[in-house]
């Protein structure tokens, strides 16, 4: 089956991102296809490489980045939601005159059209939120 995954909450405050990660990992291990993981609302905060959780805790951003590298996953952060919350890639940082970017490895910033496209293309769109 072809899945689209949507993550609507940021890391640590809510279970949503952890659950989405576990679901995505399990689906891939069972041989399903994950077309895209789309991060919206505070979910965009999963895509900053500047998080530094305590060493004995799970590293949610790194989990996503590793999964993306391992399975060639498409992790997309909504640009409108990201700009409100200070998640920038190098191009966007330059365009907005900011001194750094913070997008994590394996994530890319794009538009809401990518979410609609996932809805059209996938057999199931699974939403993780509050």
């Amino acid at each position, binding site marked *: 089956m072809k899945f689209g995954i949507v993550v609507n909450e940021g890391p640590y405050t809510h279970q949503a991102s952890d659950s989405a990660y576990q679901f995505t990992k399990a689906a891939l291990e069972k041989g399903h296809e994950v077309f895209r993981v789309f991060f919206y609302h505070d979910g965009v905060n999963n895509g900053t490489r500047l998080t530094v959780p305590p060493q004995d805790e799970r590293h949610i951003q790194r989990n996503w980045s590793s999964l993306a590298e391992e399975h060639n996953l498409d992790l997309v952060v909504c640009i409108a939601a990201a700009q409100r919350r200070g998640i920038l890639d190098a191009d966007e940082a330059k365009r907005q005159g900011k001194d750094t970017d913070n997008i994590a490895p394996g994530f890319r910033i*794009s538009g809401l*059209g990518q979410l609609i496209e996932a809805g*059209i293309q996938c057999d199931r769109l699974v939403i993780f939120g509050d």
Partner: protein
Amino acid sequence: MASEADKPEAEGAEGGGAEVTKKFLYVNRKAPYGTIYALESLEVVLIGAAFEQDVSLAFLDDGVYQLTKNQDTKGIGVKNFSPTYKALGDYEVTKLYVEKESLAERGLTEADLMEITYEDEDDDWAEKPSIRVVSREEMAEIMAEQDVILSF
């Protein structure tokens, strides 16, 4: 609200699936202010309209407050985005289902909601109401008919 990257022509439309039409339902469950879910849901609806899918909106629980008349946000310093719902007809988003029980539980009736209309191109552009008040049972049936449900 749309940025360059949101245009379907600029991205994503390739892949051969652009001509598929699916039934999309956006479920709005939260009050318009206090959290950003209602505003960012509306942003998805507006962008999604460009993909020419069969779109419906559902309003239930505190989500029914999103459509109430005379919203005034001056006191909280947040933009009043309620006029945007009235423009949905121009985006060919014409089915706004509101759950009757959710209204009643909050002491609201249809008279407390904004007048939102669209022009029906199949009926000589007659102006028709977009809001359809439905029972909880009917809402469940509407949900069961959908291909894609986005819950906010």
